[in-house]
Structures are given as structure tokens and as C-alpha cells.
């Protein structure tokens, strides 16, 4: 086996690990960002194609998920930009023309509580939802979220608190953790 083949094989192995370990979380994140399973699937494909092209930029495997989420957010913003500029139709159509995939991405359990929580999450403002997704799905620390969103750690903490408070109240108003008095945060 030549050096080139060896390197390629190593890259392939790293890439496959990235898919196996993170594709489920990346897909979930994409679903919440786009709110459209079909678009989420396309987005995840774009993310992994880009990841493959720039695999040498991933220095540590342990950072794989946050690296993929960064690509995901960037690709999503790019798509939103194109759409707002009216350039999206053609590019997306070309991709969709090759798309022969049909599946139900929401095949998880149907517990009432889970549904209530999902409904409540859909109602969260994006400013609250995204830090929560980063923390819950991405495993980011508050400091990492602050860096990614370019806001202060205190602001992140506040958004996470408010998001959880809303969700907690929606989920079960009887047992929800009560809100601190006004002016504390």
C-alpha cells in the first residue's frame, strides 16, 4: 500500500467515524434549525461533503461534533442568505432532482411529555433555542456557546435559563422550578 493510499484510507476511516458518532445529532440539530426534515437531510449531506473536503482541518477527534455543528450553522446561514437573495431555487432544485430518498425522520417514540416538550421547543425564540441545542445536542459548555454565538457567557447563561424555565413551565406547571424574582437576572 502506497503512502497516498494509506493516507486516503486513514482519512476514510476518520470520516466514517465522524458519520457513525455524530450523524444522528447533526441530523437532529438540522431538523430543529430548518424545521423541515427534507431540507435537514440535504443540509446534513452538505455538511458531510464539506467535512470530507476539509477533514485535515479537524485536529482532534474529540472536537468532531462541535466542528460539524459549526459547518452546519454556516451552511444553514449560507442557504438562508441565498434564499433571501433569490438565488436558492436553482441550486436546491439541482440537488433535489437527485434526491430519491423517502423516509419518516420522526419515527421516535410518541410519549406525551416528549411531544409537549417538542411543541414548546418549537415555540421558543431562535435566540433561546440555539444555545439550548448547542448545549443539549452538541455538548457545548457555556463558554463555547458564547464563543460560537459571539455573545457574553452571562447572556448565554441567561438565555439557557429562560429557555429551560419556559420549557419546564410548559411541561408541568405544578412541579416546575419556580422563577427567581424579577430583577435577579
Amino acid at each position, binding site marked *: 500500500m502506497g503512502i497516498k493510499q494509506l493516507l486516503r484510507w486513514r482519512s476514510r476511516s476518520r470520516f466514517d467515524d465522524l458519520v457513525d458518532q455524530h450523524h444522528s445529532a447533526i441530523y437532529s440539530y438540522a431538523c430543529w434549525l430548518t424545521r423541515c426534515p427534507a431540507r435537514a437531510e440535504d443540509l446534513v449531506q452538505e455538511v458531510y461533503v464539506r467535512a470530507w473536503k476539509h477533514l485535515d482541518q479537524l485536529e482532534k477527534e474529540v472536537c468532531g461534533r462541535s466542528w460539524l455543528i459549526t459547518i452546519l450553522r454556516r451552511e444553514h446561514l449560507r442557504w438562508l442568505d441565498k434564499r433571501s437573495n433569490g438565488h436558492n431555487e436553482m441550486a436546491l432544485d439541482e440537488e*433535489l432532482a437527485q434526491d430519491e430518498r423517502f423516509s419518516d425522520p420522526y419515527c421516535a417514540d*410518541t410519549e406525551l411529555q416528549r411531544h409537549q416538550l417538542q411543541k414548546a421547543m418549537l415555540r421558543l425564540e431562535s435566540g433561546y433555542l440555539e444555545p439550548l441545542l448547542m448545549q443539549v445536542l452538541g455538548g457545548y459548555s457555556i463558554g463555547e456557546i458564547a464563543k460560537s454565538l459571539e455573545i457574553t457567557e452571562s447572556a448565554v447563561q441567561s438565555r439557557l435559563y429562560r429557555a429551560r424555565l419556559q420549557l*419546564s413551565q410548559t411541561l408541568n406547571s405544578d412541579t416546575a*422550578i419556580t422563577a*427567581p424574582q424579577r430583577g435577579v437576572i
Partner: protein
Amino acid sequence: MNDLEFRRRVLSGETADQQLLDAAAGNPQRLRWLDQARQLDHSLQQATRITPPGDLAQRLKQGPRRRPFVKAIAGSAIAAALILAVTLQLYPRPATPDLPQALLAHLNHELVSLYADGPVQQQWVANAASRLGYKIDQPIPGISYAGACDVAGNKSLHLTVKTANSRASLFLMPALEKTAVSEFRLQKLHGRIIPLQQGSAAILSPSREDLDQLQQQIEQQISF
């Protein structure tokens, strides 16, 4: 750390922080808050996870080493056709046991469809319909959600349409043959299954008037 600060930090997800754990030690009220926050986090872990399509990982792995486009398409098409032909011969498709229940279950799984607010590109809808053999002659107004789904084993185009009364769910299922219109009532939803020239359509809505309106739109605006 006072109680308010404690609660604020607990609800920002720092439930494993050593400083918080120390602050909760020996304080039943704080331990209860900590426990509630952990339970909420557990529920959040469950709720945020959305199961990806079963073959997505495999497709992602194949993606970067694609063969040239024409070869790939030709190869895949031939392979798919062969597999499909053999499968159809060996395993005739069973009739859908209870379509209304399956539709309702699908809506429950895909709750996002009822709350999504679009915008949905008409071109995407037209392309997705076209892949199922349908042609949308005039755009259907008020689509707030569109997805390519599998309902009880039937490939379908799933649309949510905002109507004057509520939101109606529309499924176009090319492989599901029905011979007569049937209506059903499930929970608070009215439903109707309509045979089409190719396959069937199903409409579900809290308002029965929506069924008539959408049926009319399907018959007038979609061809095969």
C-alpha cells in the same frame, strides 16, 4: 451562593458543576431543584433527538467518493430496478391494515408539521410531487410544511396547508390504490381518503369543510 443564584445556574444546565453540588449538599430544597433540573435535561435529551432515516449514515459515507454522475445514476437505477422487480415478485405488497390510524400516528410522530410556518418553496413541492408521478398544475396556496415521508410503508408527499379554518394535512400516496372515497373520524380530526388516477390522497383536518376544499384543489390542480 443564595437560592436565586442557585436556581438560575441549575436551570442554565450546569447540573454537574462541583460548586453547585457543594452548594446543594445537605439542603433538601436545593437537592430537589437539582433533581428536577436533571429530569428536565433528560427529557430534553429525548425530545431534541430526532431519529434520522435508517440509511442516512450509509449514504453519507458513500457521498464523498461518488462515481461519475452518469455512471452512478445508471448503475443505481439498474440495481434499484432489479431489486424492486425481484422484491415485488417475491413479496406482494400487503394492503395497508389501517390507513387512518397510520396517518394519525404519522402526524403524531411529525408534530412539527402542524406547527411549522414555512415558507415552503412551491418549486420544492412541485419537484417532490413530480418524483412521485404527480404534476402540480397550479401552486397550492398556504403550504406551511412539506416533507417526503413514508406512511405505513407508502412513499408519500406530506403537506400542511393553512386554510381559512385551521391547518389541514394532505398526503399524496402514488402506490396506495383505493377504489372508493372513504371518510373517517379520529380523535378530533376529520379525514377523507380519495382515490386518484394514480394512487390515493388523504386529507386530515379538524374542520370538515377543509376536506371539501382540498379535495377540490387536488382534483383541479394536480394531474398525473
